[in-house]
C-alpha cells in the first residue's frame, strides 16, 4: 500500500508539474490568468448553481413512490440536456455539415424517450409490488 501510494504521489506530482509548466510557459501571453479565471468560474458554476439545483431536485422528489427510478430518470434526462446544450444553443453561422441535425427535436425526443422508459419502469415496479401484496 505504502509503495503504491508513494508511486501514485510521485507520478501525480510529476504530471501536475508538467501541466503547470505547459500552462505557464507553453501558452500564449496572457493565457494563465484567463485560465485561472475560467477554472474558478467552472467551480463556482458547479458549486453554487448546478449542485444546489440537483440537491433541490432530489429534495423535491421527497418520498415519491419509486423515488430511485424517478431519480435515475432525472439523472439521464439531465445529462442528455447538458450534452445537448452546446449543439442546441451554438449561434451561427455555420456551413451545411456542422450541426446538420434538428437538435431541439433531437433533445425533445431523447428526453421524452427517457420519461417514457422511466414511467414504464416505475409502473412495472408498482405492479410487481401489488402482486406481491396479493399473494403473501
Amino acid at each position, binding site marked *: *500500500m505504502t509503495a503504491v*501510494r*508513494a508511486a*501514485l*504521489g510521485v*507520478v*501525480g*506530482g510529476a*504530471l*501536475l508539474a*508538467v*501541466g*503547470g509548466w*505547459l*500552462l505557464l510557459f507553453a*501558452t*500564449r501571453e496572457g*493565457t494563465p490568468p*484567463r*485560465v485561472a479565471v*475560467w*477554472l*474558478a468560474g*467552472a*467551480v463556482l*458554476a*458547479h*458549486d453554487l448553481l*448546478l*449542485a444546489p439545483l*440537483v*440537491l433541490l431536485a432530489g429534495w423535491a422528489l421527497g418520498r415519491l413512490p419509486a423515488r*430511485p*427510478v424517478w*431519480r*435515475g430518470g432525472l*439523472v*439521464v434526462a*439531465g*445529462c*442528455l440536456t*447538458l*450534452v*445537448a446544450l*452546446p*449543439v442546441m444553443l*451554438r449561434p451561427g453561422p*455555420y*456551413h*451545411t*455539415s*456542422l*450541426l*446538420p*441535425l434538428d*437538435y431541439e427535436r*433531437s*433533445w425533445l425526443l*431523447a428526453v421524452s424517450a*427517457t420519461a417514457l422508459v422511466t414511467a414504464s419502469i416505475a409502473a412495472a415496479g408498482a405492479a410487481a409490488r401489488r402482486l406481491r401484496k396479493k399473494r403473501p
Partner: protein
Amino acid sequence: MSPTRRTVPFRFRGGLHDPRTATALGRWLGAAVLVCFVTGLVGHVLQEPPDALADRLPPRPVWGYRLTQGVHVAAGIALVPLLLAKLWTVYPRLYVRPAVRSPLHALERLSVAVLVASALLEVFLGLMNTAQWYVWPFSFRRVHWALAWVLTGSLLLHLAVKAPVIAAHWRSRSAGTRALPASGAGDRRSLLLGVGAAVGAVTAVTAGQTFAPLRPLLLLAPRHPDIGPQGLPVNRTAAAAGVTDAAVRDWRLVVDGPRPYTLTLEELAGLTQWEVELPIACVEGWSASARWGGVRLRDLLERAGAPAGARVRVVSLQRRGAYAVTEMGASYARDPLTLLALRVNGETLNRDHGHPARVIAPNRPGVLQTKWVSRLEVL
C-alpha cells in the same frame, strides 16, 4: 466523510454522500479520465509529433487515429454523468468544519480544488470544441493539452491521498462498506444504475458520429458522417479557408526537390492513378470512411528525385487557418496508401473537400489531411 457539523446553515440528510458511493463512482470516473488522457496523448503525438518521432509515426493500422480519437471523445462525453455524480456524492465535504485543520489538510483541500476545477473546465472545453463553439479567450488546443496533465496529475495525487479510504470501500464486503448503514445499499445500487444509464444514454445518442452501428441513434452529435458535400462532412469550407476561384483556376502543382517540376491538373490526372479506402477522422470525434482516388505521393516525390527517407512540406492554397503549411514525416510520405487525391467516391473532389487536390494518408488526424494542396517541398 464525516457528517457536517451545525456550523453550516443546513445539513445533508440524504444518503449516499458516503465513501462507498464515492469509491464505486470514482473508479469509473478515474478509468474514463485515464482513457481520455492516454488517447489524447496519442492524438497529440500524431498531430504535433516531437522531431525525433516525426519520421517514424506508424501509418498502420489505418484506423488507429479514428479509434483513439473516437474513444477520446466518447469517454469525454461519458465523463459528464460520471463527474457530476461523483461531485454530488462528495459535495457535503465542501462545507466540512473546521475548513482547515492543519497545513497538510489545507494542501489536500487545495489539491482537490485543482482536481475539481481542471476536471470541470477540461470536460466543458472538450464538449464545446466538438461543436466548434469557442467562448473562451484562449487557445483551446494548448489549454486543453495543459489541463489534461494538470487533471491527470491531480487525480493520481488524489488517489494517493485517498488510497486507504478507497481500499476500505472497494467491495461491498470491505470493512469500511460494512460499517455504513446497510439500509443504504439498495438505494446506492439504484443510483449507480441511474448513472450507468446516463452514461449509456449520452453515448448512444452521440457515438454514431464515428461508430457506425450506433448511427440510427445519432441525435445529439455535432456531425453526421453521411451529411456534407458528396456525403462526407467538412470541417473547413473553401470559403472559410479563403480559397478563391482565381486561385483554383490558375492552380498548378509545384513539386520542389532535387529535380523540381510543375504539373497542371490534366497532367496530374494523366499519371498512374490509385484508389484507396481510408477514413477521415477529426479531432472533434467524428469520422467517415471514403474511397479516395489520385496519385501516390511517393510517386510524385520520386519523380522529383527525393531520397527515400525524405520529409515533405505540404503547402495549401488556403489563406486562413493554422494548418495552411504542414509537414509530413517520411513514414507517411513513402506509404503506398498516401495519396494526393483528386477524387472521392468516384467523383471529382468538391471544392470543400479540397479540389483540385488534397492529401489523404492513413492513421492521421483530419487537420493534417491538407486540402487545396498547391506545393510539395522535399525537405
